[in-house]
């Protein structure tokens, strides 16, 4: 954690594995809050169950609600509806928000509830030992797909966009400046905003998929990510294995 951001922490060290992408994401969320000069006492951090849900709880020295698996968005909806002054930020994982909590995510986007949801995507269930998730790529090895995942991964950004989100973006923790700007933007938007953040899990996912070394996993992720602008004009062959990042939907200034 950057020294100037430690003032936002409740504890002196993080609980994440060395080399975990969630350390970077924790840093960037606080960087965005700091740069916006938000009063953290006016914020509420809601999370579900899983590694990413630990980003705010217990780390952030603020109001935090560490909830049930999959239900963070529902808890956040109730809190926001009775106290609209709270700036509510949901931070949880892909399994939590996409698998078990997928329905709540869709409906919060449909209702355009004024929440910011940051979904840390590590492509598997890290906390329980690396099982397949709705975001796991085809062919990837996990604790429950020992011969390779056969199902297509879900595109959560397209999902919430189709459901009616005001803002939807996808970035990786290897794009810290773009991601920080995106978080800052999402926190200023009235309505439902969603950012999928690729955050490598070498401990559970990497070690089964040729990336036991976190530095190499970060490097590979960094090389795989291209922006939407960079992707334009590339052939399907050139886009193979690439993660296209950027803002996919922003109707925050949209008027009929």
């Amino acid at each position, binding site marked *: 954690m950057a020294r100037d951001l430690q003032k936002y922490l409740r504890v002196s060290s993080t609980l994440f594995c060395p080399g975990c992408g969630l350390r970077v994401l924790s840093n960037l969320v606080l960087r965005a809050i700091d740069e916006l000069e938000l009063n953290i006492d006016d914020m509420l951090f809601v999370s579900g169950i899983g590694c990413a849900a630990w980003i705010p709880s*217990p780390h952030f020295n603020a*109001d935090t*609600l560490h909830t049930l698996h999959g239900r963070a968005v529902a*808890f956040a*909806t*109730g*809190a926001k509806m009775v*106290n609209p*002054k709270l700036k509510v930020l949901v931070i949880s994982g892909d399994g939590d928000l996409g698998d078990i909590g997928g329905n709540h995510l869709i409906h919060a986007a449909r209702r355009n509830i004024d929440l910011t949801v940051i979904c840390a995507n590590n492509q598997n269930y890290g906390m329980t030992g690396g099982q397949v998730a709705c975001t796991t790529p085809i062919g990837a090895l996990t604790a429950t797909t020992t011969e390779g995942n056969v199902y297509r991964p879900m595109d959560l950004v397209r999902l919430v966009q189709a459901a009616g989100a005001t803002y939807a973006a996808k970035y990786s923790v290897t794009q810290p400046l773009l991601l920080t700007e995106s978080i800052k933007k999402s926190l200023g938007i009235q309505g439902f905003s969603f950012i999928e953040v690729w955050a490598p899990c070498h401990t559970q996912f990497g070690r089964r998929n040729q990336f036991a070394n976190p530095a190499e996993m970060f490097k590979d992720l960094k090389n795989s990510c291209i922006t939407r602008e960079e992707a334009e004009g590339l052939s399907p062959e050139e886009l193979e294995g690439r993660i296209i990042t950027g803002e996919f939907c922003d109707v925050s200034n949209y008027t009929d």
Partner: protein
Amino acid sequence: MKEQPYNRVEKSVLPAGSYYFSGDEAVVEGALAARCGYYAGYPITPATEILERVSIRFKEVGAVFMQMEDEISSICSAIGASWAGAKAMTATSGPGFSLMMEGVGYAAITETPVVIVDIQRAGPATGQATRVGSGEIMQAKWGSHGDYQVIALSPWSVDEIYYMTISAFNLAEKYRVPVFLLADEAVGHMREKMEVREEVKLFERIKKRGAAPFGTEEASGVPPMPAFGEGEKLLVTGSTHDQYGFRKTEDSLVHEQLTSRLHNKIVNNREEIIEYEDYYLEDADVVMVCYGFTGRSSLFAVNSMRRDGKKVGMIRLKTIWPFADRMIKEVGARVKRIFVPEMNKGQVAGEIMKYASCDVISYGQTNGEIIYPSTIIEQLGRVL
């Protein structure tokens, strides 16, 4: 009748007077009188009328209504609303009640006041959606995993469901616990006269700035409860936690202390919480213990049998959980038999058997219909 604790008196929302309401409608008026600020629900027979009336009435007083995508999100959002400072509730029936159970455990371990109305229908599963049942007595107590305590109330009339809804909020706020209003379809759908009094006595959440929100000096105490946005930097978690909310998932002492306090804060205060009514107990040989709509048939039957000179008595449980164990033990020691008519296969009868030294005879009717007075007279007549 025992007076429940209160710390605030307000004007009733409805003008004082007589009203002709269904039980479901009366729940909504009771919630408004209790100053409920948030309702989340999902349509389900026979509780839908609550949802529909809430959708109209809540906005009239500036309270929030959300029709959620399911009962899981309904209870979860109500818990979130409660921590944001509102009195919060949801209402449902059997299948929705089952879906809520994980949330009930979360409310219990985080000590979140929340009121859950269950208008019971005939189960299991979809069962008979429009018919009456009383099958969630044990589910209300044990539906979520782990050890915790709840409070469950059982109304027998429209008038009582109105006042019991207010009591449910008062108890939830006082003990920081999920409180169930375990009505049955017959009470929910029945229409009858209801009297609204001028004033309503409320219990408001205790706040104490800087106090530990999850622990007390006494082993069975109820900590004060701050809300989000008050600068208390709350750490709320469904994991085992210490008095400040820090996760202690491998500390056996903290887990024992937490689960014991969740248990004791209700069980040690049960004489304060428990309410019941009794009839003809002085010289009764056989006592009928009943609750909910069945209390009406039972009272008719007992009055009728008394006129015939039969020494029967009756106890109507208004509080199901915590269970009136001491009273049942005392009554069971001086009567010949206890007869328990109920619209399930003996869920309360089984509980009575744990405490009564006399014979306990269960009459469990699960045909989707109310138990008629004539049935009770016949069945009770056999055991006199």
